[in-house]
């Protein structure tokens, strides 16, 4: 049984040295929990301004991990938040290495703030209140 499904789409236009034109970077995040298994799906797409139909880079990952739906406390939500953050971080790194191989420079890959992930995870999990700083990031002490 799906207890939560939300999607978050974040788009932006960033300078990119691919023919001297701007590119568009899009992150799409979907999350659900079914029978104590969390499934986090993230898609990242980078389009050159001169070709909106064929992305220069596209990446999709799905991360699955166990959660205890009956004990969704602060620690459990922190584990979910930490997991999706580093799923995103890993994808940004892979995109960076794709671009390095294409000799593309001056691009920007923007990570979503922790708070955006937290809200996208869903209302049933977000009943556990986490505090974020002004930049929308959670205060992990490391």
């Amino acid at each position, binding site marked *: 049984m799906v207890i939560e499904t939300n999607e978050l789409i974040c788009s932006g236009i960033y300078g990119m040295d691919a023919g001297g034109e701007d590119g568009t970077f899009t992150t799409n995040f979907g999350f659900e929990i079914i029978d104590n298994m969390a499934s986090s799906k993230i898609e990242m797409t980078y389009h050159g301004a001169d070709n909106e139909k064929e992305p220069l880079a596209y990446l999709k990952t799905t991360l699955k991990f166990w959660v205890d739906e009956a004990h969704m406390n602060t*620690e459990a939500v922190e584990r979910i938040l930490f997991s999706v953050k*580093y799923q995103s*971080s890993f994808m940004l790194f892979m995109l*960076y290495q794709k671009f390095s191989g294409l000799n593309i420079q001056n691009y920007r890959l923007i990570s979503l703030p922790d708070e955006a992930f937290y809200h996208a995870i869903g209302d049933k999990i977000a009943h556990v209140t986490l505090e974020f700083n002004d930049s929308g990031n959670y205060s*992990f*002490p*490391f």
Partner: protein
Amino acid sequence: MEYKGLAVQMEAFEFTEDLHVTNANECEVDFDLNVKVLNGQIVSMMDMQYYSIHKPLTPLASLRTSMKLWVSPNIPDVSCSERVLYSLKMQHRYSCFMLYQKLKPLNLQNFYLPTPSDEEFFKVVKSQTMADLIFDVNGKYIVSF
């Protein structure tokens, strides 16, 4: 570059920094990283201990993680060095997170878990045949996520 038989790289460093908690008891965290490169496979083992300086023989929390990753045959390229560095950093972050959650039930507050610089991580894993990376004056790699 070729790896032949035995380990071509094995170094370790210790990273210790004083920490403070709200109850004014002084605590420390010890961090040991040991890396082996063997036949194109890197094995990274991290030990972290968090303890009160008054009870150095009884850690409040202790953690060991081991990570194995394959490196490509054309290891002397920058991309491969970046992947190794990124993997070590993520292993460390994950270890810190687990340690943080272990410590939370102890009601320790205002603690922090120090992170070695990117350059320190790379010094440990760097073999003679691995491509160099450039770090800034703070030891941070020019690209970070």
